[in-house]
């Protein structure tokens, strides 16, 4: 009798757990799963609301993947994503280590440096325009120093495929996010291991490569995944600050969707699915590599 009662209590508890997770599941699967399923269906030619139903056809993918424009766009998209994430970490790893040493103004500096995290990307783009444009402040300062005497002589930072303006905005906006993530990891690890290494006679280079870096690796992995995925899916910075044709993939997809011809939307959906596919491949490869790294260190 008693075991029966505990069993039914446990069942009740399980049911309650399921009920409490359910809203989250419904929202995620409904929105996210729905978007994925519909996106894939449409990219294979299913769009009865436009009077198009060729499902399943690979026409849209073929047209896309056999054009050199697509590969140029993909290359640009990945280049901006990688460059910004890499530069972000080159800055934020030493920055978070410096800020983890509590000095008198470290809180103020940490707060100041966090500002970009709090404002929209579009503000970052406005700042890039006013700083880096040919009529921007850096150009004016160069003229003041006598380096140039015409705005056109200023080195073209915006609207080129080198994407320095885009990368600058990403870095400006994401260094605080990365620093905050790494600082949280550092704060939790404490300084004990670093001090132990110091006592044992490790120099600062050894401490960084052998102690600190392996400790903050999980933070680096999670922050870089989030930032990279954001960077290759971002739309506004490449549109405003980019070099125009060939566009990055999100801009390309948006242009297809804005086309008066509905049929192009299916083409746009093929772009979107390709983008998600590429990011999925990178995600899987990255997580696999990370797992191998952790296994080599004996942590998994």
């Amino acid at each position, binding site marked *: 009798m008693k075991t029966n009662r505990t069993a039914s209590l446990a069942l009740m508890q399980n049911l309650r*757990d399921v009920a*409490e*997770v359910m*809203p*989250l599941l419904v*929202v995620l699967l409904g*929105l996210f799963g729905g978007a*994925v399923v*519909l996106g894939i269906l*449409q990219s294979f030619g299913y769009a009865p609301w436009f009077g198009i139903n060729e499902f399943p056809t690979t026409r849209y993918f073929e047209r896309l993947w056999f054009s050199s424009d697509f590969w140029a766009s993909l290359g640009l998209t990945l280049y901006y994503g990688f460059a910004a994430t890499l530069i972000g970490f080159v*800055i934020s790893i*030493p*920055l978070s280590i410096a800020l983890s*040493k509590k*000095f008198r103004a*470290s809180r103020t*500096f*940490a*707060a*100041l*440096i966090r*500002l970009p*995290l*709090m*404002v*929209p990307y*579009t*503000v970052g783009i*406005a*700042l*890039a325009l006013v700083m880096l444009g040919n009529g*921007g402040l850096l*150009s*004016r300062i160069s*003229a003041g120093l006598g380096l140039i005497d015409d*705005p056109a002589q200023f080195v073209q930072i915006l609207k080129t495929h080198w994407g320095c303006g885009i990368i600058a905005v990403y870095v*400006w906006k994401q260094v605080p996010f990365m620093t905050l*993530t790494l600082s*949280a990891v550092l704060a939790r690890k404490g300084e004990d291991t670093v*001090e132990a290494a110091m006592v044992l006679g490790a120099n600062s280079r050894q401490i960084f490569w052998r102690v600190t870096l392996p400790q903050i690796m*999980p933070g680096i992995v*999670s922050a870089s*995944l*989030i930032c990279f*995925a*954001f960077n290759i*899916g971002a*739309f*506004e910075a490449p*549109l405003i600050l980019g070099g125009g044709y060939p566009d990055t*993939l*999100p801009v390309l997809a948006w242009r297809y*969707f804005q086309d008066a011809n509905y049929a192009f*939307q299916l083409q*746009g*959906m093929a772009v*979107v699915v390709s*983008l*998600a596919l590429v*990011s999925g491949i990178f995600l899987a490869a990255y997580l696999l590599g990370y797992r191998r790294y952790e296994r080599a260190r004996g942590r998994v």
Partner: protein
Amino acid sequence: MISSPRDIKSISPWQRLLVLAMATFTIAPFAPLIIQSLAFRWAWPNILPTVWWHEQRERSPFPLAWDYVFSPSSRVAEATINTLGIGIAVTLLCLLICLPAARVLAQRNFRGKNQLEFLIALPLLIPEAAIGIALLMIFIALGLSGTYAGVIVVHLIPTIPYMVRMLTAVYQGHGTEAEDHARVLGANRRQIFFRVTLPMILPGVIAGCLFTFLVSTNLFLLTFFIGQGQIITLPTLLFAKISGGALDATGAGIALIASVPGIILLIFTDRFIRSYPLAE
């Protein structure tokens, strides 16, 4: 070793240089933005405007710079109200969805838990443009595109992963002992939640809400795609202003207005934002 705050000289010169350079890189660009918002004529290569806005104010037949920003025709007031209103609605809805789920994730072990956690993180790992465009088609079919409901629902996608993560960490930090004691002492579920659990997890809940609000107010892409130009928020208004690749006094003013919520949150919530467990 030393627990009391040390001088900035306690870090190496390279670290000092890095911290100062990053602070400059972060803050300095706001100076020309403020100048631009106050300029009337700012020809190249002058470092400061030759004619300021306040000198031309009386003479101009139409509102200039900040006068325009604060006039109804700029739609700044409408965008601000939309941004804040959507942010609050998204935060409350997100909390309602995530709080119960976070408790289960923190306190229970079940088959498929890892997969569920991966599913929750997935919206951050799939490019936003892909989600936005695919959802737009669904929302058009459902009649949700260009409505407040549609924008609020779509804002849940990038906010849920953070909220779940932060709330789960909060629940994990507290365990279940206090609740067990209250249950033994005869409290019912409602009493336990409002009298025991909530007061304990409140700081974490506030941190989660602030971060969610922040993400929502800063969101551009999903608002832009799903709002279809009918729901304007500060980021989309600013985008419309600068999408041509030029920034005038009005654009600079709107950019400054769009930064205000973030700056206010930065000043008043330093304590909360700092302590949130982002790194998992």
